[in-house]
């Protein structure tokens, strides 16, 4: 499972970095979104990956990481998702404003001159 998750994160980061370096604002936006997915998965995976384990303590089971998965990375991911969602929305607004003000979807507001 570790290999699958690392491959997924790697592919997301690679695509995200490539898109962020593109000149179109929408590509940059999608790149940032992919990067934030990758980071969220990464945070999730530092709590050690586990199948069928809950982060909530139940009666009758000792409260240690052998019986439960670490709840802190999950709560961190939750916060990170909210924040990156909000900033992506804000980025979208600025993107549209730039598009409206300059009639261009280039990140610099104008096409590159050769």
């Amino acid at each position, binding site marked *: 499972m570790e290999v699958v998750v690392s491959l997924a994160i790697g592919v997301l980061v690679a695509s995200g970095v490539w898109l*962020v370096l593109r000149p179109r*604002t929408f590509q*940059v936006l999608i790149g*940032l979104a992919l*990067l*934030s997915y990758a*980071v969220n998965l*990464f*945070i999730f995976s*530092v*709590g050690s990956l586990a199948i069928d384990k809950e982060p909530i303590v139940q009666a009758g089971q000792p409260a240690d990481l052998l019986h439960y998965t670490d709840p*802190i*990375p999950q709560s*961190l991911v939750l*916060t*990170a998702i909210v*924040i*990156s969602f*909000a*900033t992506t929305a*804000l*980025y979208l607004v*600025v*993107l549209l*404003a*730039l598009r409206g*003000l*300059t009639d261009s979807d280039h*990140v*610099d*507001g104008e096409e590159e001159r050769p």
Partner: protein
Amino acid sequence: MTPLPAVDHLLLVPVLLPLATATVLLMLGEQRHAARAVIDVASTLLGLAVAIVLLLRVDSHGPTGAVYLPGNWPVPFGIVLALDRLAALMLVLATAVGLASLLFSLARWHRAGVHFHPLFQLQLLGLNGAFLTGDLFNLFVFFEVLLAASYGLLLHGGGAARVRTSLHYISINLIASLLFLIGVALLYGVTGTLNMADMAERLPHVPAADRGLLHAGAAILAVAFLAKAGAWPLNSWLAPAYGAASAPVAGFFAILTKVGIYAVLRLWSLCFPESAGASALYGAEALVWGGMATLAFGAVGMVSSQQLGRLASFSIIATSGTLLATIGFGRPALTAAALFYLASSTLAATAMYLLVELLERARQAEIDPPVEIVAGPLPAFVDARSVGVVNLDDQEAPLIGRALPAALAFLGVAFAVGALVIAGLPPLSGFVGKVAMLSALLDAEAGASGAGPAARWSLFALLIVSGLLASIALMRIGIRQFWAPQERPAPHLRIAECVPIGLLLGACLVLVVRGEPALRYLRDAAENLHRPERYIDSVRAARPVAAIRETRP
């Protein structure tokens, strides 16, 4: 540490007060400019008073600081607010700079967009929270709060230039925030805690196999902070963004790069002191040489800029470089001098950004026909009326301002004072900071720090050369502004615009006159920073309030 009864709850005020004020301001509605302004100023004044009280208390409080447990959970589990001398200094500095920018904006800028006042308070909330928090993830949240507010403030006033630079600014800060998250996640994976004091305590016990991961996490985290601090080569966003921002916003942003510096200083001194065993002073070389490269970049940028706004931005970069390089040596005396320099240069940089607009206006008045002024450097306000006179604009003119007869004299004196502080020339506070740094560099025993004598002498030379370059650049602009023989109608300033500049520069003067107690305070602050066990002990010693604790399940 025995917590003083009243300190504890006062610690929460710098976080809660801006939050409450922002909420009230949002609910007030968009059109009630006067009421919003009054509430905003009153709240910021109160915040400044609280910050000063906190600073005085923490100073009389012995070597350790005060700690507050907002959730009343025991230490490694709950969120911690911790106040030491450094945090108190940054609180006072941020609120003072904010207050000056706010007063300046009251002349007209606060009407240029809808939500200036709530955004301003949220920015203050993020800043204060970042300075107070003792929890790494909480630090991330407060960083995001202050960045989100800064995105809004940067856009304040509108226009293609601001939107374009905002897009770059937001992209770079989003990527830096992602790096921040990766760093936090790695450090959590290695140490199993997010509490900064707890983490510092566990670091020496990290097994050797994990040490590489730990260093990678710390380095990624540092890259995020350095991008925010404007360290070379991660600072290409800084000059365009700050140059495009409206004057009071740019003035307030002068403190933003210092948050990055603060985070580096706090975490680095806490996690990698000389006593940290295998990780002692990890990254010191990178800080020192990276800081020097930033300083050189900033100094060359200052000489190459033709506008005062750009020059002020590059002076901020140069300040960041100076601070990073001096912090990287890990010597208490150098850190104390760097903190003094930080305080004085932040105040001066804010004053410069505020002056920029007044100077541009003065120059514009002589070149352009009066009507052009509204369309040119001044923003086209959403609710602007058509204007026929040189001096400004909207209907509140008779309420707040009047033309100063000595406007030009004021501009000249203010510019000279600000330039002396930024260039570090005697007799003002920039000079005291630089001399303190230079003498500490001479004193530092060779080889005792992370960087060798080559780094020490390079920094020594670079500090002097950069001061020379800064004074050349500032003098050139000053000559063009004030001494060039031109038929010049006296610029029209408002008192509301002059008072904050006067206050900021006055604060620089106070730093000189009261230099001895200020340096004594900063030496104590640096001493505490370089003995991280004091911070760790004071955080570990914090206990939840028993009566409430017992009612928990």
